[in-house]
C-alpha cells in the first residue's frame, strides 16, 4: 500500500526531462561532427542570442550541479586545490576547472567550447573563472558587465549595458562568421518569454495546500529553463509539467505525505544532500514549497518585452535577484512568504556563493521583524561536502521544526 502511494507521488514528467537532458548533452558532445559551435555561458547570461545563432549553449554551473548531485564534488575540488586553487574559491569553479583538465565528473567532462560568454550579474568569481578557461581552451571570451542595481536601473546603467549587448552581437557575428538573424532572434525571444511564464506558473502551483511538488523537485526541473530557454522543447515540456501539477492538485496528490508546515528555502541547493534534506523535512511533515533560487529564472520577466526581446535583454538580465539591493531581495522574500503561505524560512549560508550568502543576515533580520516567523540558517556548500556537518545540521533542523510546531500547534 505504502509503495503504491509513494509511486503515485512520483512526478511522471521526470523521465521525460532526463531524456531531454541526455539528448541535449549528446548533441553537444557531437557538435563538431554536425558543424555546430559550442559556447560556454554563465547561468545568468543572455543565452537567447546564442540559440538564435544556432550555437549550442553549455552551462558549467549546471554541470557543477550534476557533479554535486552525483557526489563527485569533493574529489574534483581537491584536484583543483592540488593545482593551486584556494579552498575558499567557489566549488562550481573548482570542480569545473579541474574537470577540464582531468576529464572527470559524471559525463566525463563537458564538450570543449568554441567561445565563452561570461555575465557577472550572478557573481564576480565568473570573471576570473572564465579567463582561466579562455586561456586553457584558447578561445575568445566575451564579458558582459552588469552593474548592481542597488536601488534602481538608472539611465546610465541602461546605456552602459545596451552598448555591451550590441558588442555581444558583433562578437557572435565575428566568431561564427555569420550575420545575426534578427527574425530568428524575435522567435527565440518569444519562446524564451513563454517558457519563463510557464516556469513561473509551475512554481506557482505550490501555493496550493498541500503542495503538488517541493523545492527539491523545482531544483531538478529547473535544468530546462536554464539550458534550453528559447527553444520549443522547453515550452512544450513546461506545458506538460504544468498540466501534471494541475492534475495532481485535482487528484489531491501532495509531494510530502502529511504536509503540515510550509517552508521557504533561500540560496542554492546542497546538491549532494538533496535526498537526506528532503527526507529530513518530510519526516517533520514539512514541505519546502518554494525557493528564491529556481524562481530567479523567471524573476525578471516583468522587464522582458516579448515583442522586442533583444531590446529588453539589457534590463532583464541586469535586474535579476542576485544583482539588486538587499532591501529589494528581502522584499521579494517577504512577497514569497505571503504568496506561498510559509511558516518559516530556511537559509543556506553557502560557503561557495558569496553574493547569494552575503546579505542573508540582513534578510533574516528583516523577515523576523516583519513576519515574526522562525528563520533557520544552515552552514554548508553547494558542491563541496567537506563544508557540511550532518549531525550539526540535523540538530538545527530538528530544533527549528520543534519551534515551528510549538508556534503552530
Amino acid at each position: 500500500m505504502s509503495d503504491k502511494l509513494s509511486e503515485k507521488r512520483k512526478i511522471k514528467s521526470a523521465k521525460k526531462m532526463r531524456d531531454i537532458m541526455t539528448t541535449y548533452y549528446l548533441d553537444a558532445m557531437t557538435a563538431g561532427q554536425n558543424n555546430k559551435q559550442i559556447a560556454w555561458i554563465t547561468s545568468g547570461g543572455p543565452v537567447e542570442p546564442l540559440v538564435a545563432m544556432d550555437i549550442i549553449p553549455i552551462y558549467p554551473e549546471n554541470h557543477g550541479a550534476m557533479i554535486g548531485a552525483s557526489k563527485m564534488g569533493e574529489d574534483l575540488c581537491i584536484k583543483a586545490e592540488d593545482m593551486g586553487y584556494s579552498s575558499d574559491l567557489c566549488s562550481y569553479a573548482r570542480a569545473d576547472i579541474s574537470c577540464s583538465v582531468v576529464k572527470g565528473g559524471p559525463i566525463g567532462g563537458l564538450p570543449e567550447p568554441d567561445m565563452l560568454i561570461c555575465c557577472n550579474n550572478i557573481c564576480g568569481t565568473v570573471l576570473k573563472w572564465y579567463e582561466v578557461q579562455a586561456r586553457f581552451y584558447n578561445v575568445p571570451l566575451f564579458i558582459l558587465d552588469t552593474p548592481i542595481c542597488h536601488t534602481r536601473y538608472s539611465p546610465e546603467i541602461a546605456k552602459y549595458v545596451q552598448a555591451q549587448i550590441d558588442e555581444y552581437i558583433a562578437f557572435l557575428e565575428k566568431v561564427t562568421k555569420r550575420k545575426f538573424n534578427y527574425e530568428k532572434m524575435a522567435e527565440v525571444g518569444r519562446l524564451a518569454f513563454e517558457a519563463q511564464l510557464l516556469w513561473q506558473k509551475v512554481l506557482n502551483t505550490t501555493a496550493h495546500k498541500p503542495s503538488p511538488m517541493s523545492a527539491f523537485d523545482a531544483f531538478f526541473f529547473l535544468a530546462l529553463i536554464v539550458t534550453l530557454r528559447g527553444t520549443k522543447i522547453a515550452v512544450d515540456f513546461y506545458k506538460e509539467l504544468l498540466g501534471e501539477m494541475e492534475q495532481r492538485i485535482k487528484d489531491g496528490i501532495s509531494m510530502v505525505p502529511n504536509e503540515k508546515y510550509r517552508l521557504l528555502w533561500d540560496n542554492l541547493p546542497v546538491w549532494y544532500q538533496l535526498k537526506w534534506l528532503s527526507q529530513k523535512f518530510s519526516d517533520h511533515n514539512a514541505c519546502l514549497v518554494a525557493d528564491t533560487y529556481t524562481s530567479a529564472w523567471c524573476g525578471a520577466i516583468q522587464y522582458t518585452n516579448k515583442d522586442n526581446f533583444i531590446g529588453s535583454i539589457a534590463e532583464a538580465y541586469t535586474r535579476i535577484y542576485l544583482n539588486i539591493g538587499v532591501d529589494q531581495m528581502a522584499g521579494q522574500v517577504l512577497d514569497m512568504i505571503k504568496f506561498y503561505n510559509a511558516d518559516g524560512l530556511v537559509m543556506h549560508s553557502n560557503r561557495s556563493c558569496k553574493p547569494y550568502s552575503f546579505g542573508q543576515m540582513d534578510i533574516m533580520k528583516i523577515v523576523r521583524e516583519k513576519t515574526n516567523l522562525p528563520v533557520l540558517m544552515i552552514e554548508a556548500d553547494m558542491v563541496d561536502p567537506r563544508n557540511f556537518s550532518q549531525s550539526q545540521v540535523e540538530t538545527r533542523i530538528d530544533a527549528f521544526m520543534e519551534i515551528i510546531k510549538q508556534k503552530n500547534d
Partner: protein
Amino acid sequence: MIYAGIDIGSITAKAALIKNNRLLGTHVIMTGYDPINAGIKVFDALLKQSRISKTQISAIISTGYGRASVSFADKALTEIICHGTGAHFMNPEIRGIIDVGGQDSKAIFLDQNGQVENFAMNDKCAAGTGRFLEVMAKALEVDLELLGDFSLAADKPSKISSICTVFAESEVISMIAKQERRENIIAGIHESAAARVAILANKIKIKKPVMMTGGVAKNKGMVNSLENRLGFKLIVGDLAQENGAIGAAVLASKL
C-alpha cells in the same frame, strides 16, 4: 507519575527524574565511545541512586547529540528545546540561555512562557566549546576542572588571537615556550572562547536574566570572562550541566 530525561552529550551523559513537577534526582557519567551503552548506564545508575524501578517511569525523552541512540526513549527532542524547558522549570524568570557543551555552544531566546523564540549555534568549528577548553587543558597539563581556579589567579590575561582550536593550540604552545604564566594563558583562553560565545548571544539579542547551562558553566573562569564580555551577570545553578536532561524530563511529563 515519574518522568525521565536523558541527555547524551559528546563528552558526558546526563539523566534526570521528576515526580509531580519536582526534581527527584540527577546523574552524570562520561559518554565514552559508546553512546548507546552510556544511555542505558546513566539511566540505570540514576534509578538505583533514587531507589526507583524502571516500571515506575511513565515516559522518557532523550536529547543531546546521542538522542537517537536511546532506543528505550518515547521521543527524542533537541537540546535547544530541552535546555529552554529546563531553564524555565528551574527559574521561570529566565529569558535567555547560554549553553556551552562539549561539542557546541548556543544562545537561546525564550518567550515569557518559556518557549524557544530563537536560537543561534556555533558554526562548524570547535572554538568556543568545551572541546576547545579540553584541548587547551591538555596542552597546559591542567585538570579540566581546575581551569577556572587557575584563570581567576591571572594578573594579565594573555592574548590568544587565533579563533581556530588547532591554531590556538599552537599559539598556546609558543606561549608556554616563552614561559608566560600558566594562569595568564588560561585566562586568555577563556577570554578567547567567551568572545566566540558572546557573538551568539548578541546575534539573537539575548534578553536578561540569562542562565548559563552545560558542562562549561562549572568553569568559573569561563563564566567570569563571559560576564565581562556581555556586561551583565549570568545565573549559574548547581545543576547547569544536567539542565538539558531536566528539561527532557519535564517535556516527558507533557507527552
